[in-house]
């Protein structure tokens, strides 16, 4: 691939997904695009990029999806889930006791491990039996990932990272060498392909947003725009969870990190004080 090819690709991917392709990742990009080249019948990645310049929509979409990072695991960064279970959820159950309705969004769900981890916690809390309605919405830029998540089938290696054996036995069914998430949990999650650069009009009144390890791939302006849109979609007393290396500093006037849990963000200092008391 030439430098010009890389620059063209970087511009296209940035426009489509917001993803910043570092110039030094050219070799990695070739590896990620090789399966796409094969699928579309190209001799090599250079030929694929040549064709991409003609604006073929299905190819451009497949390329942008292939260059996203889909690394995930069940209960990844366990602390975030501990905060959800021990602080965020009890606070919400009190605040929403009248409506008995919760709306949770996993903004970049990859193959579904994050929403299914939440579904396990919600199932273990036995909220449905107490009459709670829970909208657990999970989106990802990649339609391949959404299809995998909906299938809910995980390998021997995937279920052994982050998932306690008791949860594996309780929430999965063995299928030959793999493990399938049980139907009751699968039905708890609504999966949908979604680009974080698009309009969030359909995502209103959210109580919790998990948007972890996504912003790191965006430039400053895209990060700020995404945070603004999340702020609009989040309820006044809602909580945003970012990855443990991510921050809102210099990006958002709305979100305030919690002192005791710096990956948790709420809207404004008054709400942060309230959550500090709960925490």
């Amino acid at each position: 691939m030439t430098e010009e090819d890389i620059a063209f690709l970087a511009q296209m991917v940035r426009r489509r997904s917001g993803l910043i392709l570092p110039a030094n990742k050219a070799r990695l990009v070739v590896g990620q695009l090789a399966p796409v080249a094969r699928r579309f019948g190209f001799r090599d990645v250079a030929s694929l990029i040549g064709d991409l310049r003609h604006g073929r929509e299905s190819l451009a979409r497949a390329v942008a999806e292939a260059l996203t990072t889909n690394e995930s695991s069940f209960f990844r960064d366990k602390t975030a889930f501990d905060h959800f279970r021990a602080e965020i959820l009890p606070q919400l159950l009190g605040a929403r006791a009248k409506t008995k309705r919760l709306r949770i969004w996993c903004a970049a769900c990859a193959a579904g491990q994050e929403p299914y981890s939440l579904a396990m916690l919600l199932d273990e809390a036995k909220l449905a039996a107490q009459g709670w309605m829970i909208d657990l919405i999970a989106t990802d830029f990649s339609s391949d990932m959404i299809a995998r998540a909906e299938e809910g089938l995980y390998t021997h290696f995937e279920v052994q990272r982050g998932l306690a054996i008791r949860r594996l036995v309780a929430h999965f069914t063995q299928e030959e060498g793999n493990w399938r998430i049980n139907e009751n949990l699968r039905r708890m999650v609504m999966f949908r392909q979604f680009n974080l650069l698009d309009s969030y009009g359909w995502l209103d009144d959210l109580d919790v947003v998990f948007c972890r390890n996504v912003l790191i791939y965006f430039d400053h302006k895209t990060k700020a725009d995404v945070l603004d849109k999340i702020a609009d979609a989040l309820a006044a007393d809602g909580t945003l969870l970012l990855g443990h290396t991510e921050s809102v500093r210099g990006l958002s006037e709305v979100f305030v990190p919690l002192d005791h849990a710096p990956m948790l963000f709420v809207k404004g200092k008054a709400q942060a004080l309230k959550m500090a008391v709960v925490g």
Partner: protein
Amino acid sequence: MKNCLVVDDSRVIRKVACRILQDLHFSTDEAEDGIAALAQCRAHMPELILLDWNMPNMNGIEFLKTLRKERGGDQPVVVFCTTENDVAHITEALGAGANEYIMKPFDRGIIEAKLAEVGLV
């Protein structure tokens, strides 16, 4: 430094597991079956036992049941590490007092994740 007793009749598996555990800052001892493992536990109870299921002389589940009745035998964290990957075996192991369960084949990532699960890394 915490001590782990690796119990497996395969010398290769013991060696691979010990290397990973040492990387994770455990001291390691080895036993090739349940009887040898019990003798070692009676002399010195480890913090962690990585335990195979199918072994000659005394298998993993027999060892675990005996261990949990021994004085101080409730202390070690026991993580099965076996090719017996079906729900019936897993359930039996948990019922006998296993804390976690690794399905072979394993790699460093799996061992590390499972030890995190039981609070040892």
